[in-house]
């Protein structure tokens, strides 16, 4: 068994009626790396994350996460994984502390209060602990959601557009924190974003999805080089235009 492989995907396929959202995708994500899942809206990024979390059942293909088969050992995997998305929220009428307490208990965290306060300090929002989530700014809310995503000290973290709707200063702070967490804890990150400069800054390797297939794969430098372009943004635009053509 390859102990350095955190995600191993072979021939992953998901169809919704006449649309094939993910089409025979192969992925190999290594321990401790930041892996970018990129593509236009509708390219299959979110569906791929849902498939990797077992929220959606694939039509074909094998998925192994942390060396375990997802189909048969999903709960065991989910206890060691976490997830944050710009499109998913914690209940707005509970305080940050209450929400994080609930999730700490769901993930079986020992000494939840201590863990929560550590994370709030790490993300520089300790003063939000007793404020309801519905009253936070989008920057504070994103960081509170990241606290939830880190509550179980995950080995693998899925981040679906973690800096969407943040101002550049807060987005930079979030990126710094993610880098720090990765460095200190060796957590593997699967990252989606439409901000290609951010992707070049954060990701060790990327895959560009187009119509559910891997259209380009490698380190950002390799992908740029293969496409003969100066930036990932140009590669993104090329692939998007090819998709339309």
């Amino acid at each position: 068994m390859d102990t350095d492989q955190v995600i191993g995907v072979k021939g992953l396929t998901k169809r919704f009626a006449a649309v094939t959202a993910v089409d025979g995708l192969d992925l190999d994500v290594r321990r401790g790396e930041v892996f970018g899942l990129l593509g236009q809206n509708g390219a299959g990024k979110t569906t791929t994350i849902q498939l990797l979390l077992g929220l959606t059942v694939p039509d074909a293909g094998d998925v192994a996460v942390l060396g375990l088969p997802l189909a048969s050992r999903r709960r065991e995997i989910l206890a060691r994984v976490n997830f944050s998305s710009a499109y998913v929220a914690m209940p707005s009428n509970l305080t940050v502390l209450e929400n994080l307490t609930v999730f700490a208990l769901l993930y079986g965290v020992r000494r939840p209060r201590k863990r929560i306060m550590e994370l709030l300090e790490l993300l520089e929002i300790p003063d939000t602990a007793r404020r309801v989530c519905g009253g936070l700014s989008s920057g504070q809310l994103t960081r509170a959601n990241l606290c939830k995503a880190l509550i179980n000290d995950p080995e693998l973290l899925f981040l679906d557009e973690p800096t969407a709707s943040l101002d550049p200063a807060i987005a930079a702070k979030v990126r710094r924190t993610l880098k720090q967490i990765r460095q200190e804890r060796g957590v593997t990150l699967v990252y989606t974003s439409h901000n290609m400069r951010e992707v070049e800054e954060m990701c060790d390797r990327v895959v560009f999805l187009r119509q559910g297939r891997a259209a380009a794969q490698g380190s950002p430098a390799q992908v740029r080089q293969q496409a003969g372009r100066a930036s990932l943004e140009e590669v993104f635009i090329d692939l998007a235009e090819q998709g339309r053509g």
Partner: protein
Amino acid sequence: MWLRVWALFLRYVYLHKRSVVRTMEIFFWPVMNLLLWGFVSKYLGRLAGPGTVTYLLGGVVLWDLLYRSQHAVSLSITEEFWERNIVNLFAAPVRPVEIVLAACGVGFVRALVMTVSSAFIVYAAFGFNILAMGPSLGWFYLSLLVFGWAVGLFTMGLIFLFGRAAEGLIWGIPFLIQPLTAVFYPVDVLPAWLQPVALCLPSTYVFEGMRAALAHGTAPLDLLLRAAAGNGVFLVLGGVFFAWTLERVRVKGALARQAME
């Protein structure tokens, strides 16, 4: 397992702690309903005799118990859709049975609070003592609570299956049951062709038992046993249907899509 059930239960404790509106909701509708039916019963009591008051008020209190139990279970999952938290829950190592147990626990507490407060109100305002139902009252409470859970599971399943467009069913489904289950009148008032349908519902035996208990101080054992057996069947059916719909939304990839509707 129990730690996760407690966590999900705690989430609703926090919700009620933070939301005066949600907490008042436990009392407001039952109280309004009781007052309305209390005055109607009083008037009917003048026309038809005092027994009418006890049957109607007993029916109102017990019906609300069933209604609130179903409500609490179905609303618990709908709340997660409203808050866009459903994906967070299903991406955590939580079993569906843990979600169901927590929802049933919330239903138990809400129904208990509602029944106790209703009992005080009907006694203070209309002189109706719910304890006049005798020892069978405990059995009625449990039967209606469990049937409420079963209907709640079925409603939750429909919400998963059809998305948030089906939310109206939370309030609508109990009113499909109400005319059939002989809350305010005996089963033999129903047309002959409808009576077998009424007798398929465990709650029908509870309301028939309630009238017997109010008339004679105790409910016939066979009614209580039929209610228990019916509840067993409905609870299993509700659980199986809920599990089936959960699997179906995973196959259809509908969970996240519904959460974002």
